[in-house]
């Protein structure tokens, strides 16, 4: 009995320790003025929302927020389309180079991103993709894990569905869009969620590929603001809260699905 209490207690303690810094953003953002400097620290959020409201309405943060929303939404749409198409081709169609493409995608996963930034910047410069929305979206319009996920799901579809569709004269694109993708709904959900998280959290790419404040996503704006006015803790944490809130909301409702997707579905039997 004591052992069980110990296990559950330590489990709860550890979980809270991991979440504590995120909770602290809320405490400081909605605390009284100067609460950050209080000793001993204030532990409870006071829910003074006025600095938060000022940040949302009187500054450029809403613009940055909309930039992030737009970039993430476009990336998600494109990733789902390209992943579904390539995943279908890899799973169902026989063409020379099918398995070669499979390994080429694995190869993309192995490329060290930090070593590629300089040549990527040159490429972006020559394609005129610096400093515009397209440059923040198009390079992320294909996802290696998304393609593998759709491939895995499409492989499980019965062959007879495709044969019937062929006999009925249904085109491949129509079949993918009307039959295969709706049947692979978990793959769509996983791809949307994981793309949203990676796209929303994008920081280094916009830092390098843009220098105009009008198109920068909220993470980049936060970092600029942080370097300029670090002492303004309440506004800073309020802005951080704006960047965090969508992720926290999405995660609160889909954590089971996300954790399972990251675990490669291995945990699903137990849930």
């Amino acid at each position, binding site marked *: 009995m004591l052992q069980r209490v110990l296990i*559950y207690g330590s*489990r709860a303690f*550890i*979980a*809270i320790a*991991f*979440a504590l*810094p*995120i909770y*602290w953003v809320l405490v*400081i953002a909605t605390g009284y003025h100067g609460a*950050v*400097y209080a000793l001993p*620290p204030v532990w409870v959020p006071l829910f003074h929302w006025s600095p938060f409201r000022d940040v949302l309405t009187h500054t450029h943060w809403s613009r940055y927020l909309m930039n992030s929303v737009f970039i993430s939404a476009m990336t998600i749409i494109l990733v789902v389309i*390209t992943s579904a*198409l*390539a995943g279908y*081709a890899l799973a169902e169609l026989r*063409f*020379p180079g099918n398995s070669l493409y499979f390994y*080429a*995608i694995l190869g*993309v996963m*192995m*490329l*060290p991103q930090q*070593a*590629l*930034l*300089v*040549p990527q*910047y*040159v*490429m972006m410069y020559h394609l005129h993709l610096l400093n515009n929305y397209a440059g923040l979206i*198009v*390079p992320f*319009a*294909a996802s290696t894990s998304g*393609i593998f996920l759709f491939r895995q799901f499409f492989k499980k579809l019965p062959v007879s569905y495709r044969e019937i569709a062929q006999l009925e004269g249904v085109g*491949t694109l129509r079949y993918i869009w009307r039959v295969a993708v709706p049947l692979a709904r978990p793959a769509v959900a996983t791809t949307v969620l994981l793309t949203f998280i990676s796209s*929303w*959290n994008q920081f280094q790419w916009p830092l390098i590929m843009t220098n105009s404040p009008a198109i920068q996503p909220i*993470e980049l704006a*936060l*970092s600029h603001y*942080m*370097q300029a006015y*670090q002492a303004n*803790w309440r506004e800073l944490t309020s802005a*951080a*809260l704006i*960047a*965090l809130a969508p*992720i926290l909301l999405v*995660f609160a409702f889909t954590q089971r699905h996300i*954790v399972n997707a990251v*675990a490669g579905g*291995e*945990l699903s039997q*137990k849930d």
Partner: protein
Amino acid sequence: MGEPLRSGMVDSPRSLTEKLPSWARWSRWREVLVGYGLILPSLWVFLVFYYGPALFLLYIAFFHWNIFASQSTFVGFHNFVELVHQPVFWQSLLNTAYYVVLVVPVTTLLALALALLLREATRIRGGGISRALVFLPHVTPVVATSIIWVWIFDPNFGLANTVLRFLHLPQLQWLASVHWALPSVMIYTVWHSAGLYTILFLAGLATIPRQVLEAAQVDGARSWFTFRRILWPLISPITFFVIVLVSINTMQTFSQIYTLTGGPHGGAGGPAFSTTTDSLLIYQTAFLYEHFSLASAMSLVLFVLILVLTLGQKFLADRFVFYR
């Protein structure tokens, strides 16, 4: 009879279309064309933004060039010679090594311990919640959460020193100190990423048949013995996978170093280059000082280092990892 069919021929359209009626041959060709059409969008992205730049890196590292000038001159290994004469380059390699050597074992062991603790979490009420909370930091944006960690590491008002004061330990300067700035970044990194690897370990543990563990318990095996002789060998493939992943990721840490060490402490990578790692130096050389030739030479060094590390770990794994 002709030659026996070679296995490589099976996929080629010709071998498949021979001796088929013309409509079937057309539908076979159609399948090939549709296949290429469907992979084209993603293939284009991978070629233009990933494979193209990777090949391009091999080229530009051996040239003296500038992004805005049209001509470039072949200089052989000159960029690399210039690189090894930069003390800050060696400093960055040392910092990266220090960072990787500490973060990899700490993260791996912590993730394994958390996974063992959180195992069977979903069998009890609220167990899934603690699993989710451990994973939560990994999905949060780095800049937004770095802000709060800058406050935690604040020497005067931060939570870190408050805890040290409570424990009657000497207080630290954290991000403002040459000795503690990089360890502070390590703490953030472990906090931010341990959840991911915990989940990977949990996935590995979930594949171990319950009967194996129950049999060990019936035999009266002690828990350390069960772990060392049964669990550890069974999860060694996933441990290896996690170690490779943590190493590759930590060698390329950028965002938290840039954010945590920037601001009032005077430029990212400080104080006194104590947190300048390879990826930060590449960023600064290329995009702050616009010294692209040098930055591409550094990128190629990093590329090769990561490749060697991956292959070296693969070699070790072939000798020591137990695959079922």
